[in-house]
């Protein structure tokens, strides 16, 4: 437990979007803190609000976004939402930086790699052209790009996917940010390259003492990388814990379901995967009860009417939001009751649930 104030404090953050179909509640009350130099993994499916969450933290939302009062984001003691435009410009890059999923679309295809890396160094740090180039070269070496001098003069299309992602990391690190946000940094890459990039991020983080938010849909990616994990579903955190606790005492049915859907190499081939049936809810609708209930094998009457809040499980630093946590006797009873009728209280057919 850190005695000093955490680097990042997010309190009841809500981000809504005004869409033609109505108000879309992409993030609906998320709180967490992040200490200096710490890594938190945020895990969830597409559409669970993970990317909107970090964009809200960085304050780079589109113009139709609404952040209701009471949502607080404090970074290093400062409220990021009150920054003026000019303050914000030097805030991004020097304090917080972000890397995105697809390195091809986040790099400018018509500018040389060197120009793209030096741009922020010159802008934020007021470095001369030569100083910036020297720094860029240093960064290229740091992120493990072979022949860095030659690569600086190349265009993104001349690099492989892994190399491009290394370049975006170099750009993000150019001004020594205190927090690096990695939004699905390896989803577009091969497993072998994914491992290289994750190893690189881990070693850079140790070297530079940055904090990191690692976003992914794959629990396997964060298992060995993050100290803490937050699992998000439909705009809410449903379980947060330190990594070891989360994997050993998985409480929320959604966390369990995500975990079970990973094909494990240790298993016999043709092992049937426990896929999660259905899809996340439409966030424009008014949602009542537990948002995961329609897809949950354990759903009971209470799950449809009452919305569970995050509460402490008794394990240190472990919170979860389920009335029938996995591993509890209530959970076993709930499953038994559902299996007997063959259908959950929310109408999920357990016999067909195995199908899709």
């Amino acid at each position: 437990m850190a005695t000093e104030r955490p680097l990042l404090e997010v309190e009841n953050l809500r981000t809504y979007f005004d869409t033609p179909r109505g108000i879309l509640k992409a993030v609906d009350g998320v709180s967490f803190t992040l200490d200096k130099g710490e890594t938190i993994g945020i895990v969830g499916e597409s559409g669970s609000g993970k990317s909107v969450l970090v964009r809200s933290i960085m304050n780079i939302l589109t113009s139709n976004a609404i952040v209701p009062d009471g949502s607080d984001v404090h970074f290093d003691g400062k409220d990021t939402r009150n920054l003026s435009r000019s303050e914000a410009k030097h805030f991004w890059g020097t304090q917080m930086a972000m890397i995105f999923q697809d390195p091809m679309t986040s790099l400018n295809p018509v500018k040389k790699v060197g120009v793209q890396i030096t741009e922020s160094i010159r802008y934020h740090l007021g470095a001369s052209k030569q100083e910036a180039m020297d720094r860029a070269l240093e960064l290229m070496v740091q992120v493990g790009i072979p022949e860095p001098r030659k690569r600086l003069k190349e265009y993104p299309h001349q690099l492989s996917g892994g190399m491009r992602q290394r370049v975006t990391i170099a750009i993000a690190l150019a001004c020594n940010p205190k927090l690096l946000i990695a939004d699905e940094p390896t989803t577009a890459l091969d497993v072998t390259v994914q491992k290289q990039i994750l190893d690189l991020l881990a070693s850079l983080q140790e070297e530079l003492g940055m904090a990191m938010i690692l976003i992914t849909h794959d629990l396997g990616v964060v298992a060995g990388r993050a100290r803490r994990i937050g699992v998000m579903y439909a705009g809410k955190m449903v379980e947060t814990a330190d990594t070891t606790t989360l994997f050993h005492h998985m409480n929320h049915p959604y966390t369990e379901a995500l975990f079970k859907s990973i094909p494990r190499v240790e298993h016999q081939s043709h092992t049937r995967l426990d896929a999660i049936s259905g899809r996340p809810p439409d966030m424009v609708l008014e949602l009542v009860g537990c948002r995961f209930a329609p897809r949950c094998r354990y759903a009971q009457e209470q799950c449809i009417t009452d919305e569970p809040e995050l509460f402490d499980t008794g394990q240190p630093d472990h919170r979860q939001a389920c009335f029938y946590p996995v591993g509890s006797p209530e959970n076993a009873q709930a499953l038994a009751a559902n299996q007997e009728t063959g259908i959950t209280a929310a109408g999920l057919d357990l016999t067909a649930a195995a199908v899709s």
Partner: protein
Amino acid sequence: MAGTGKVHMRGDDALVAVEDLVMEFPAGRQAVVHAVSGISFDILEGETLGLVGESGCGKSTTGRAMMQLPPPTAGSVRFDGVEMTELSKEDLRRTRTRMQMIFQDPISSLNPRRKVKDIVAEGLSIWHNDAGDTAVQKVNEVLDAVGLDPEVVSDRRPHQFSGGQCQRICIARALVLDPKVIICDEPVSALDVSVQAQILNLLEEMKERYGLTLVFIAHDLAVVKNVSDRVVVMYLGKVCEVAGPDTLYAHPAHPYTDVLLASIPEPDPDHPVSDRQITGELPSPINPPSGCRFRTRCEKVQDLCSEKEPVLREIAPDHFVACHFPNEVPVSVNGS
């Protein structure tokens, strides 16, 4: 690693036999991209063959060359007794109805302006002139089989569906002509793990229900292992190792297979992150390394590796490797 060996071929029983497949593309100034350099494999009826390797190893090119899209530079593709490379244009068109493909990005492989029922029915309307009730029935049947409600989805367009649902539509489209073989080119790489599991399960079901033979191309060995009966590990246009999926996991013989296995992220915090990492970049396929193509990134490299190309050989029953210095494999173990 050579692909020149053919000891792993299983003779005349195979439904599809690919031999000495070479695929080269001109790259300007007399340079040639050696995408696939003489690989051979066969597929038995009802089997799922996994092709695994990194981007640029030629696995997709191999899948497409089987469909003659475009025809390979050299080599033979025999499908159900027919030599695909020698077919006339019209015969090839007819043969292709029995060999279908599913692609990586489900959203971009569907025409955004067409309705789902028209997308799925297109094959039927080309090949069977019965555009009436039987076609509608068939379309409804396959949509239902892939887990989409025909009444709800028929009149919608692709943008109204999620990635996983679009992949289901692609699978329905591939199924509608009752193919024998479906080539799945990275069908789950663009999907979330939760949706990935749904699609993998669906493919297994469809295989059972329609008696399909599958070629499953992917870069993630964990995914390939889950669905395959036999796995071919590829690197830079060559075959490294051929074995049953469980054998391959338990006793990887090729150093490259080791690396692929070590790269799989383990969803277990107590499992230490392997410090084994592939070093360097994939060499250019325009100028591939001499001898074993993996030697530039291999931990076990010796002088022999640059001088002589290793040939595929059987090191245990139904376990083949193309490496001069493979890992020890217990010979008594009988895989899969």
